[in-house]
């Protein structure tokens, strides 16, 4: 019985910490969507540079244009909208999705010197 209780408390605590660490914030599509697009937060957090690097070569050099690991997909889902102006914030600007982590670990994001930082004209929301 005591063991069960310890286990239960353990689960409850994990829930609380993961809620604190939830990187999805604001009113982005990702925050509103219940659909899971990638395996787990820990995997995508650690591996996203590899995923994106692998995908960019396939897309550019081989013409493979799937939604999986597409940077456009990241931006479409994780860009927050300004509630007053109804315009998207750049996904890499201060305190937005990319910057919150990248600032903390002092790693610059180079994607957006070329790539678009807000959902483009063709984006119609999460399917």
């Amino acid at each position, binding site marked *: 019985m005591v063991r069960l209780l310890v286990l239960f408390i353990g689960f409850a605590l994990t829930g609380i910490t993961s809620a604190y660490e939830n990187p999805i914030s604001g009113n982005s599509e990702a925050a509103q969507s219940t659909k899971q697009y990638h395996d787990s937060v820990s995997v995508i957090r650690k591996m996203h540079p590899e995923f994106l690097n692998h995908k960019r070569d396939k897309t550019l050099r081989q013409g493979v244009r799937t939604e999986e690991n597409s940077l456009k997909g990241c931006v479409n889902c994780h860009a927050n909208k300004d509630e007053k102006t109804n315009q998207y914030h750049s996904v890499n600007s201060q305190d937005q999705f990319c910057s919150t982590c990248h600032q903390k670990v002092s790693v610059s994001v180079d994607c957006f010197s*070329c790539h678009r930082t807000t959902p483009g004209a063709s984006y119609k929301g999460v399917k």
Partner: protein
Amino acid sequence: MSKTLNRRDFIKTTTATTAGVATIASGITLTTFAANANENPVTKDKRWGMLIDTNKLTEANIDGMVSACQKEQGWGNEAHSTGDQKASWIKKLKVKDKATGKVTDLPLMCQHCEEPPCVDVCPTNASMKREDGIVLVDRHLCIGCRYCMMACPYDARSFVHEELTDQREHMPRGKGTVESCTLCVHKVDKGETPACVASVNSDAVIFGDLYDSTSNINKTLKKVQSAQIRADLNLNTGVRYSGI
């Protein structure tokens, strides 16, 4: 050895068979999905090309092609670049016959060579040719040395001199890298035609697979006289012209 199947063995065999069927079935599903063009790498079986008939093309058509390209790819509004610094993926060229004085207008963009000099000179492999003949710049690798711009006989490439924002979602562009006509690769991969071809809306500009004997471009090239610009360089361009 007894041949009767007890309960435990039955469950074992059934599970194994189900797993086997599931594996095969998932294989089938994967093949079905892979038939979708965008999931498969492009192959050498195709060679994209364009045929431009300068006799049928008016000056307004060419201006339309340039603005269609600008609109599609988002270049041409670089505020801080001047003169030659401005991006120019496609331009209107006037060619004059010195003897007769006949002036021909023609649109000039990346000719998507089979033997591209820009790819030969690139020190980082950023300048590259896809299997289906489309020549592109991989800006992830481009260091902005501009050797390719020097090497290109058609002056088809531009260098981005300033920081840019609000790019097209399908066409990342950034300061310090070289860019040029992509033959609207993002549209071609979806089975559409390049923006400039679509803007003309007549058979003055034909886009298609040069290798496919049933394609309009292949049939027309067999029928009409056509030329490659600077054919003496033996680059075997994908963009062909008739009427020059």
